[in-house]
């Protein structure tokens, strides 16, 4: 007599959990559906029709953007930016986190590196201009250095109006994001069992060997999340680029974000839709690929 009773109870529990899940989830899911999912379907539809008349044109919009010179430049710049920045940020973060993990009072140093994350972009634009304009601090510093060493004369590079603008952006990205990479690396390093490292030490492994054979292999998970988050944050560099150099900056820092914004301002929704679908799809593939690689490791 007892047997049929039990599944019944489990079923009731299941039902109760399902009901609770739905009611806790509902407000968020309805909002996400209304504000993100459904409109994205509309974007998908718009990527296949003309902007003004709404005529079905198949993949013509995709063809247009791929042959669009501005799109090609923007994609190339955005890719170049991420490919330069992410490895650099990952490396710098680790070079700071590794010695930091062995200091006792790391808290203050951590806060110093984290602070730029809290600084609103708009507040530092003035400072960036003071540093990177032709008569700014950087040229002043370099010129003085040249005078002192006698190696070079006056330097009057216009950092924002030339190729150098790209490196200004790289620098401000690193400046802003080093802090959280350090925090993530530190969390990863401190998660490694001390015994494991100690055992290696007792076995005679030097500090570099310990780093290479014990610490680094244990940090693959941290690497994955740091790469993903750095990638996500790399899109936010648009703020700096836009504020320092405007909607049409030097060619070397014309990013996808500028292009989206300019299409938006000019109401070129057909191109925007096609580009949004492509970018979204590309990002999805990258995320899944990284996840696959990480799961294997």
């Amino acid at each position, binding site marked *: 007599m007892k047997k049929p009773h039990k599944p019944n109870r489990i079923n009731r529990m299941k039902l109760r959990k399902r009901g609770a899940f739905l009611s806790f989830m509902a407000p*968020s899911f309805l909002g*996400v559906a209304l504000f993100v999912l459904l409109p994205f379907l509309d974007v998908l539809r718009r990527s296949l029709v003309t902007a003004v008349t709404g005529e079905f044109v198949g993949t013509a919009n995709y063809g247009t953007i791929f042959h669009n010179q501005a799109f090609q430049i923007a994609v190339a710049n955005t890719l170049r930016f991420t490919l330069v920045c992410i490895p650099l940020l990952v490396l710098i973060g680790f070079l*700071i986190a590794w010695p930091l993990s062995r200091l006792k009072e790391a808290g203050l140093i951590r806060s110093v590196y984290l602070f730029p*994350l809290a600084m609103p972009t708009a507040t530092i634009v*003035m400072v960036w201009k*003071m540093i990177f304009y032709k008569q700014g601090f950087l040229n002043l510093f370099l010129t003085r250095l040249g005078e002192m060493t006698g190696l070079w004369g006056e330097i009057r590079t216009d950092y924002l109006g030339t190729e150098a603008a790209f490196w200004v952006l790289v620098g401000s990205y690193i400046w802003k994001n080093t802090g959280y990479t350090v*925090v993530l690396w530190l969390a990863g390093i401190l998660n490694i069992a001390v015994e494991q490292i100690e055992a290696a030490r007792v076995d005679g492994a030097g500090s570099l060997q310990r780093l290479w054979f014990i610490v680094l292999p244990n940090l693959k998970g941290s690497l*994955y999340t740091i790469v993903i988050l750095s990638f996500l944050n790399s899109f936010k560099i648009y703020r700096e680029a836009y504020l320092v150099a405007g909607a049409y900056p030097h060619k070397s820092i014309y990013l996808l974000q500028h292009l989206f914004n300019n299409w938006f301002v000019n109401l070129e929704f057909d191109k925007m839709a096609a580009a949004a679908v492509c970018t979204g799809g590309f990002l999805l593939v990258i995320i899944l690929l990284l996840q696959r690689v990480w799961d294997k490791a």
Partner: protein
Amino acid sequence: MRENVLKSLQKGITRAALILPGALVFFPVILLLTGSVMDQYELGGYLTSVFMDGTDFIGWKLMPDYPTFENYGKLLFMTPQFFVLFWNSVRMAAGILAGQLLVGVPAAWAFAVYKLRAGRALFALYVVLMLLPFQVTMLSSYLVLNRLSLLNSRQAVILPAVFSTFPVFLTYGGFRGIPEQLFEAARVDGAREWYIFFRMGLPLGKSGILSAVVLGFLESWNMMEQPMAFIDDKSLWPLSLYLPQITWVQAGSAFCASVITLIPAAFVFVLGQDYLEQGIIYSGLKE
């Protein structure tokens, strides 16, 4: 003995090497602070050549010749526009945070506690949405806001941010750390699900919730793309869009306005640094 000395020397050097780049971090802050208490003639003397493409290099003094608070006075008492924009920023940030908590915390709870198969798939979707940059979803948001006639209002910035999936993910990190047996025990004692959520979930998941608040505040205080795209009316703009509009001729106001904008962010940073770090770690947790 000798080894000890060497070791502490080495530690001292690492510490110095780690702190030095930190000076770079504070360079902008020091410039802003000193600039905000210089009078306009002094500032003009230092900056004219930079912004008018002159020949002299920029100059600066860490201690201004004539320190003055007149810039602050002018900005706070004679620029009503500044107040309007400051309150716009405050209202947007408050609206976004309140909405995110109201909607996001229960959702995070649902994901963390009721591990249904459909829930897992939905969670993966939320993670992907969290990783999409604004530019990809800009057109979608515009289309909805247009349909709901919310464009050019504060809601146009607040509502899409409320349904951002990032705070859900952060809060989830906090809830996940609570041992499940606690809830089971409460259920056996006859507690209802809502009771468990309010009485056990909220207090025990505090760190995740506060992380979401700290990161959410810093993000919305710094928000630029969204208001720029969805709000035309400049009287509805947040501070973050107003600052870049100040020309260098009014450099004094620009410095002051920057410092004042920085204060709430710095305040939240100092108070919530632990939660900020915790939040960064939660955002790095993989399912």
